[in-house]
């Protein structure tokens, strides 16, 4: 049973992405194969140098960098959306696998889940 958790909403403005992350960590904690896909506005999670202290939130970049440690197998990002929001590759977090086709990727997982 493999699960792909999809985040398509921007960070900070809503809580759905954080709750998606809790889902993927939960699967990993129970030793279930799980991966993350950022698509659309969701790719903005992957920008470097985030600092959410001023708006009273925790920076999501830190949550995300913990993903491999917690057993999340892979972090994918939609290539098209990355080019749109982060054309400069230096502004993207490392160890992200870009995918050209979301359509193809989602067929490779038993479960494809949005958090909200």
């Amino acid at each position, binding site marked *: 049973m493999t699960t792909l958790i999809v985040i398509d909403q921007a960070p900070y403005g809503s809580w759905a992405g954080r709750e998606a992350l809790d889902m993927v960590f939960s699967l990993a904690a129970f030793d279930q194969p799980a991966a993350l896909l950022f698509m659309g506005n969701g790719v*903005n999670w992957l920008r470097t140098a985030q600092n959410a202290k001023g708006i009273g939130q925790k920076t999501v970049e830190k949550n995300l960098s913990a993903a491999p440690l917690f057993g999340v197998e892979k972090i994918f990002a939609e290539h098209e959306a990355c080019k749109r929001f982060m054309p400069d590759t230096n502004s993207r977090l490392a160890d992200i696998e870009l995918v050209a086709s979301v359509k193809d990727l989602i067929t490779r997982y038993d479960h494809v889940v949005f958090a909200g």
Partner: protein
Amino acid sequence: MNQSLGTGTLHILNKAPGHPRFIACLSALSGQDSLVLIEDAVLALPDTDTALPEHTVALELDLDARGLSGAAKTDQKISHQQLVQLTEQHPRIISW
């Protein structure tokens, strides 16, 4: 900040690019209007698919949160204090 401001309506936009209301807001702006991007709307600055009007500013703390300190020119960034000043100066305000 002030040189990038218009004298018409003040539009405050918090939706991310691609949201139907984001699109509606941009097409409802008149020439002398001013646009303030807050929350997820600040993502319009790096978005290569969005063309922003001349009189656009963005909340600095929302830019910082999203790693976009460098995506806006200095005179495009405003504090909450400056947002309050903008609401003083504009009797007509629309929150999208």
